[in-house]
């Protein structure tokens, strides 16, 4: 249980408005935990806070027994936490291959001087990364688009590319912000299968923010229901989705 992500009393304020207040939640390792709730409930803000893009005004985040809050985003990524964005944010001017490759290269190898003093071992390592990147691109089914610019892909393909990017970096915990929003039903099936596989076969932990309740019902093991910046309800999937007040507050059922 030490590998769990623990949100301890998280508060985030914009001016006078508390987007998050006293959020206590835990994300069990190797499982899919969904944060659901109406628009403006603070779901995306919560992902920003975990990823280090926003600094919490209150509380702390612990992951693998270390405090995460207050460290910059690239450091959070180095600790094994990967982030997917609602608007995907692939690198449009980079090829599909480079999109995947760029995050895989370890930090020491990204310094400029390496371009001039690359050893043979480093070059061999690069080739290995490239092969790995290609494997992940095949894994998500973009093998025919390897050399295309990411901006020329369809939105659904860009979502797949952003999944490949996360998988290739070997993140142990994925923060997925509406991975199935805005794509075709067929693509939704593909994406949920990829998430499922990452969790079941590679033991990845997932934090899922999602509006599509069918996807949540299919994937989530544990659900936190956010309402006006607070965790209003937490529990196992069936427990939360079956809860009457949740259904009223959120789904209008």
């Amino acid at each position, binding site marked *: 249980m030490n590998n769990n992500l623990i949100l301890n009393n998280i508060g985030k304020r914009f001016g006078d408005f508390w987007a998050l207040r006293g959020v206590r939640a835990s994300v069990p390792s190797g499982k899919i935990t969904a944060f659901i709730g109406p628009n403006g409930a603070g779901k995306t803000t919560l992902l920003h806070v975990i990823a280090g*893009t926003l600094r919490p005004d209150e509380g702390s985040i612990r992951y693998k027994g270390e405090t995460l809050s207050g460290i*910059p985003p*690239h450091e959070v*990524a180095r600790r094994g936490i990967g982030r997917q964005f609602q608007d995907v944010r692939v690198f449009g*001017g*980079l090829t599909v291959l480079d999109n995947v490759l760029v*995050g895989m290269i370890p*930090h020491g190898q990204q310094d*400029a001087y*390496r371009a001039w003093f690359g050893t043979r071992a480093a070059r061999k390592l690069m080739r290995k990364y490239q092969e790995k990147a290609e494997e992940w691109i095949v894994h998500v089914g973009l093998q025919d688009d390897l050399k295309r610019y990411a901006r020329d892909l369809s939105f659904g393909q860009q979502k797949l590319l952003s999944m490949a990017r996360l998988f290739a970096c070997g993140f142990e915990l994925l923060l997925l912000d509406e991975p199935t929003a805005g794509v075709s039903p067929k693509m939704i099936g593909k994406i949920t299968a990829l998430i499922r596989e990452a969790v079941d076969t590679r033991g990845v932990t997932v934090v899922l923010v999602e509006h599509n309740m069918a996807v949540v019902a299919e994937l989530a093991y544990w659900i936190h229901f956010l309402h006006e910046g607070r965790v209003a309800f937490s529990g196992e999937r069936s427990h939360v989705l079956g809860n009457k007040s949740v259904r009223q507050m959120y789904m209008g059922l």
Partner: protein
Amino acid sequence: MNYILHILVMIGIYLPLAYSLNLAVGFGGLLSVAHAAFYGIGAYAYSLLLTGVGMHPLIALGAAILITAIIALGTGTIALRFRGDLFLFVTLGFQMITFVILYNWVGLTRGPYGIAGIPRPVVFGLTLRTPLQYAVLAAVVNALTLPLLFALYRSPFGKALKALRENETAAKALGINDKRIFIQAFVLAAAFAAIPGALYASYVTYIDPTSFTLKESIFIAAILLLGGAGNRIGPLIGVLIMLLLPEGLRFVGLPDAMAHNMREIIYGLMLAVLMYLRPQGIAGEYRMG
């Protein structure tokens, strides 16, 4: 013949200027108008170390690169707290400050009088004098520096820089250290501008602050704007057009009084039409600004 060789030397000076700025602007998306300042700092450092201290030209070149890099490290640390328009304005400020210092610190730079009598380089006992010798020198300098820049372009560093240009938040979320990569790009772009600075100083043997003005910075940025940034072909096309076009206009037979103005008008029109039709430049892969 000498005229053509002179143009070749100038191309040899502007190519490394454009390709070095390309690293910051085309790859990093950091639109800077301070490149002439670093070009000038390189030229002045090289010249002063030769005339004042009597250093060997190669050592003076190395020292000039180092001095420019150190100044760029300071400037970059401040400028890179900002992005986009604000970054541009900080570089604008630095460009203007540099000019004022070059112009007014008479004790060091001789101010508006400039530095005259910059020794010509001596290679294997041969003092370079003729335009042909300088054209060869410029070619050698380019053959040595451009491959270093191209290696940066295609390295993991270049890819990380491009990723930051495309989407900084997403790049950071993949673990790319934005500050570290950006400052390296800024410093390297400046340091590489010191090389053509030294080449220019040793070619004309006289420098003064008017060669390193904001106008010159904009000229270098316009090379990238016109030719295109973010790859290897764009800066080459930009340099060729920006340097050869005015020379070509000389032969159209315009009256002297008109020629200069016509040149400016044609530049302006070209840029305006191009920004409308092809905002990424003729061969660029990245749209600046």
